[in-house]
């Protein structure tokens, strides 16, 4: 469960925004860790795609015995969230009573601390909160835009 500060620098600030990996050949969206290989068409060309942040719970569990980095937060809900763009992501659903989630609950992503690294590096990532707004009527066309950091780097 440990990432060194060097690895942190290599992978960049992890998941300050929700994103998926998009296969450039067949267009299928995969979870963020699928950087190397598309399971649908075997392509090796995948690129980051930022997501809108909205989705729906397709499955969930409640963790009572957490890993070390989550001690003190139990019991907490971890769900499989099908994002409006189609890709499924695992993430905690917070700020809700464990009895108040069910399959189909609409959620939206937000920023939370995931863990404190052993070198004092803080990892932020996406958790989800229940979204009371009505769900979108049609599937969201996944937009493809470079991250703000990439834009800023390009400016320089």
């Amino acid at each position, binding site marked *: 469960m440990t990432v060194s500060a060097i690895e942190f620098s290599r992978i960049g600030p992890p998941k*300050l925004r929700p994103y998926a990996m998009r296969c450039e050949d067949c267009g299928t969206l995969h979870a963020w860790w699928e950087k190397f290989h598309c399971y649908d068409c075997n392509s090796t060309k995948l690129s980051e795609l930022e997501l809108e942040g909205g989705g729906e719970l397709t499955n969930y569990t409640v963790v009572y015995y957490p890993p*070390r*980095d989550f001690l003190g937060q139990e019991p907490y809900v971890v769900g499989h969230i099908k994002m409006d763009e189609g890709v499924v992501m695992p993430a905690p659903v917070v700020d809700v009573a464990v009895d108040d989630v069910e399959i189909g609950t609409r959620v939206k992503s937000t*920023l*939370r601390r995931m*863990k*404190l690294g052993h070198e004092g590096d803080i990892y932020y990532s996406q958790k989800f909160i229940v979204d009371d707004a009505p769900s979108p009527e049609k599937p969201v066309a996944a937009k493809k835009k470079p991250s703000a950091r990439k834009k800023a780097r390009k400016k320089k």
Partner: protein
Amino acid sequence: MASILRYGAYLPRPRIPVKEIHSFYGKPGRPRARTLATPALDEDSLTMAYEAAAEALGPKGSATTVIAVTQSPPFGMRKMSSTLAEALGLAATPYDVGGHPGALLDAFNLGAAIVDGGGGDVLVVASDYVVSHDERAADMLSAGAAAAFLLSTEGCCELGASARASDEVYDVWRLGLEPEPRYRLEVLSAAYGAAAKGALTALEATTGTPTSTYKAVCPSQPHPSVLRALGRMVSKGALDATSFVGEIGNVGSASVGIALALGLDSVARKGQKLLALSYGSGEGIAQALEVTNKPRAIGVADRLAGTEISMGTFYRWTRGRQVEPH
């Protein structure tokens, strides 16, 4: 003239009843606030700032500049504004502004200058998680929250004149970036009163508008007793819509922001004048505002109530924030 275009606020949901802290530590006297808003273990000033800022920006909002105000940043040597901008997906120039609990009003000055200078929209966010241990949590009423304001050339509420009063005094301070504030209870009320009065008087002199004209005053409020003292300096009822410390506690530099958000929520009509007021750590700032379009209320008053947590949970969360892993 720079205006508040949209605003947002975030109050963490957990609430620790202050009487639980009293009863655990055997404190005499009655609780001065009913409950304190306590951020959960996976929250901090950055995540709360993100929530408030996301609400202020809305689905299509954007800004060229992000100014983050906090006295409890996640890192002592990294800008919260730059990580915040990244998390919001903004390619914005980041600035951290701080130094005292009223720094949000400093940030308004700077933000307004950028807007007025043609620099584009400015997102100003104040977020704090005041942490005190043991019975001091019940004295300081330590709590956490965030408020965010998107400044633009036009909006719902114009930023008018502002004025300051400074004094060298040890009321509330910290050495460096140590985690808990130090305070002198016997000095606090007088110091707060002097700073507030000084700022209000200076603003009157600048604008020619008597303080009693403002029907809604949005002050920092670290403690209900200070709020009562302030009540005597402003017109009757001016604090009715903007008082919250008894329900959520002292939220540090976010305090004046929450008060302003409540004030904007309560606006009845165009033309209304609001007064934002901060004080503490020896500096008082008074900021005049005028409503140009009735803002769409975000309902901060409905968020003052939360979910109660036990003393055990509160102790674990404030003592052992994110236990260092293997």
